[in-house]
């Protein structure tokens, strides 16, 4: 079984951004996504409490260039005013085409 490297991009953001971030990653080339409700604390004054509802973790498996586009978009659009972090890891998958990738992505 061939296992091919792609990127796992993880965003953790205040709930309000959920809809926008989901739309953004799909627009930028992700073929799917996985959402988890989380609670967190970061460097921003905004704490996430019952009023806002839990924060959201958005994970997408994408080819490298899509990963870069997502990181760039999030950094530009949301870093200044919103509570959001983004990080990237390498993952191995079996069906790279499913994630919008050629074999050697």
């Amino acid at each position: 079984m061939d296992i091919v490297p792609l990127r796992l991009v993880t965003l953790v953001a205040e709930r309000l951004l959920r809809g926008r971030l989901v739309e953004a990653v799909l627009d930028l080339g992700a073929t799917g996504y996985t959402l988890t409700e989380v609670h967190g604390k970061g460097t921003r004054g905004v704490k996430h409490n019952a009023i806002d509802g839990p924060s959201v973790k958005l994970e997408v498996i994408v080819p490298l260039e899509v990963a870069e586009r997502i990181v760039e978009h999030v950094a530009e659009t949301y870093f200044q005013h919103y509570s959001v972090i983004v990080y990237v890891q390498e993952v191995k998958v079996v069906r790279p085409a499913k994630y919008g990738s050629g074999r050697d992505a």
Partner: protein
Amino acid sequence: MGSLDILAANLLSPIVLAFALGILARLVKSDLEFPDGLYQALAIYLLLAIGLKGGVALSVTPVAAFLGPALATLALGVVTPLTSYAVLRRPLGFDRVNAAALSAHYGSVSAVTFIAALQVAELTGRTAEGYMPALVALLEVPAIIVALMLAYMRGVAGKAAEADEPRAGSWQAALHEVLSGRSVVLLLGGLVIGLLAGEEGFAKVEPFFVGGFQGALVLFLLEMGLVTARRLGDLRTVGVRLIGFGIVAPIVHGLLGVWLGGVAGLSPSGAAVLGAMVASASYIAAPAAVRIALPEASPTLYLTAALAITFPFNLTLGIPLFFAAADWLA
């Protein structure tokens, strides 16, 4: 029932005590905690229940009787963000963005404060007008729109120009957020359902939405206490200006609401409840809209003011004050 009796009865009511228990639980670092879903579930239930009851009441209210109070409410929804903004900008020296953000919150309404006021009305034995929930729906939105306009328009009425950063937020997105936000959808949706179903259709669901209401509110206020207590630490950082505003603004707005409510034809109880509504600061609809339209505004400022200052003030002292004022004016 004298004013002090009302105050005492209010402070010893299960909902106020539950709020205090929530604060205390957090202060002693209890592991008591509401599951995320329970808070959301209670909020959905309470908002829908308010709407339904208001709608049913509206279905038996002559339009003429409703018109005066409705207009008074709309007027208050336009005026209070303006007065808030003026005071926050000039004497208190907040920058335009934060002043507008706070004005949106103080012009709009907190549903829980509203319900607490309704309970007090029942404690005193003089129930407020049944259609009051419809007024909540009217009061919720306009203030947010007015306040955001203040922030978006350059050089608001007679104000010195200030270095104006480019807007980070989006006006249209915020408007959509307010109008399609869950609190407006549930309140307005409930109103319409109640109006269409009428008393007969509502009878079947009454045990659930009316019988269970006050108890559900006790749970909700317990959780509100837990949430508020987490914000108490921020009181030190927001400064004495904001604390003062968070207490004086509800008094002034509330008395204005009581007076105008009476003028518009509400009963003393109804006028007192309207006063509490006007005095309250929104913490569901307004924060979401402001976060989108004015992301540069500090959530610590507006959430701490609304939740940790004004909400507890109204819940404990403000509401009895408005009832006293309504009696005095009557």
